[in-house]
């Protein structure tokens, strides 16, 4: 089925590929996808290889999802904002390049951006939080929120904790994406079954803001089966 009121704005990253594959498998197709392609030779955060753009396009063509290639790869550019603003869908699933924040001018379009944060909210806000939760409590997490101006502080639609991945060396590109895709699908299934967006925790206050993990701690999180103190 196609989700009439739900579109997607997505960069050519491993996470986007996971999302689209899961959406197709679960028959939860967005009615439209705006694809941001990296035209530079250098990979951007969230990209493991440069081939994902063509793989994603093939996926979209095979599944007959309507899509466009954005005229600018920067989600905060005026071109992209215009392309989003003219759409009739009110909710956009957001899957951008890593580290990119939505600026006020796009948040002010009136659209809502459904983002799946890699971490259990509100406890783990910020960057690379699944490495921190692996060290703290031997779990990873993902949380569905509507984006607001404050980072990772939007109302929580759904949040889940997951057992640690068997292969911890691919957390950035595989385990984290899988956890997020799982939460995205369940969140959309809830929306389809109830006909509205329901919230698990609207007051997403408190918690701790984490910053990009130091490689020593990252290695301990990967090497440790359980490094909690």
């Amino acid at each position: 089925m196609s989700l009439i009121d739900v579109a997607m704005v997505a960069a050519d990253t491993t996470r986007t590929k996971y999302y689209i594959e899961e959406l197709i498998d679960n028959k939860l197709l967005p009615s439209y996808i705006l694809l941001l392609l990296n035209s530079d030779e250098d990979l951007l955060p969230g990209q493991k290889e440069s081939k994902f753009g063509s793989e994603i396009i093939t996926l979209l063509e095979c599944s007959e999802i309507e899509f466009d290639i954005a005229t600018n790869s920067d989600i905060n550019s005026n071109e992209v904002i215009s392309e989003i603003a003219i759409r009739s869908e009110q909710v956009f699933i957001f899957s951008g390049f890593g580290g990119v924040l939505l600026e006020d001018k796009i948040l002010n379009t009136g659209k809502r951006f459904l983002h799946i944060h890699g971490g259990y909210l509100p406890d783990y806000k910020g960057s690379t939080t699944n490495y921190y939760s692996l060290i703290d409590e031997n779990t990873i997490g993902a949380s569905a929120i509507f984006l607001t101006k404050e980072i990772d502080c939007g109302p929580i639609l759904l949040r889940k904790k997951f057992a640690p991945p068997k292969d911890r060396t691919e957390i950035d590109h595989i385990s984290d994406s899988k956890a997020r895709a799982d939460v995205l699908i369940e969140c959309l299934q809830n929306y389809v079954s109830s006909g509205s967006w329901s919230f698990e925790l609207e007051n997403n206050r408190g918690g701790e803001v984490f910053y990009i993990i130091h490689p020593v701690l990252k290695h301990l999180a990967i090497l440790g089966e359980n490094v909690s103190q």
Partner: protein
Amino acid sequence: MNYEYTEVNRLKEPHRYMYTSYQGAEFIHSYLEDRLGCVKILQSDDNQSSYNPIDLYLYSEAFSNLEDYLNTELSCQTFKPIKVSINLEDCLDKSNLSTFDIINDIKSGELLTALLFNQLNGKNKELIKSWLDLLVQRFEVTKKLYEVYPSGFRKGSGASNLVRIYWLFALSLALFYVSSKNIKYLNTLLKVSDLLCSLEGDLLKESIPSNGLLLILFVELISIKSLSKTIKEVEFEFD
């Protein structure tokens, strides 16, 4: 394997730590070797009394505060920093954290000194976390700390190469991590230690008490050792 995070002067070339690659247990050993190399340089400094008396006081009090934590893991007496005792009553007026407000310009050195006085005296815990979080946020975004943060505490001004500021910050992070065990603060401490260990030994020795940096490095190493105790590939001892 080289530990790239201290290979060049990180005051001049900050590392962003984005998407760092996994290099196996050998990486942890390269980190350990690099830190112990820095320890060795600092231990060769026998001129411990010529520093700013406030810094010596802060170091001395921090050592007393952290002594139990150090004793849990350090088996070798030679790694223990030497305790310094000085009288510094005239500096106690610098400890009032409530005089700082982000609507005013804030000198990082004064803020950090006040933070440390309060941490060492177990006062104002919520205020300490609030100010420390602001400093962590500023450092993590820019990988620098500036001499002054003008009103609003956003973009810094003045020098960003003051070694003493980074040492005070590291000391504050070390104390906060030991009392809270919140890995967020160990994470930033590792980055500040990388920066300090990337500097020339002579610059360190002329800017901060060597024992003061040794103290921080030992806290960090013991913390990493504690976190890695269940990982067979990463066993290490201080001997």
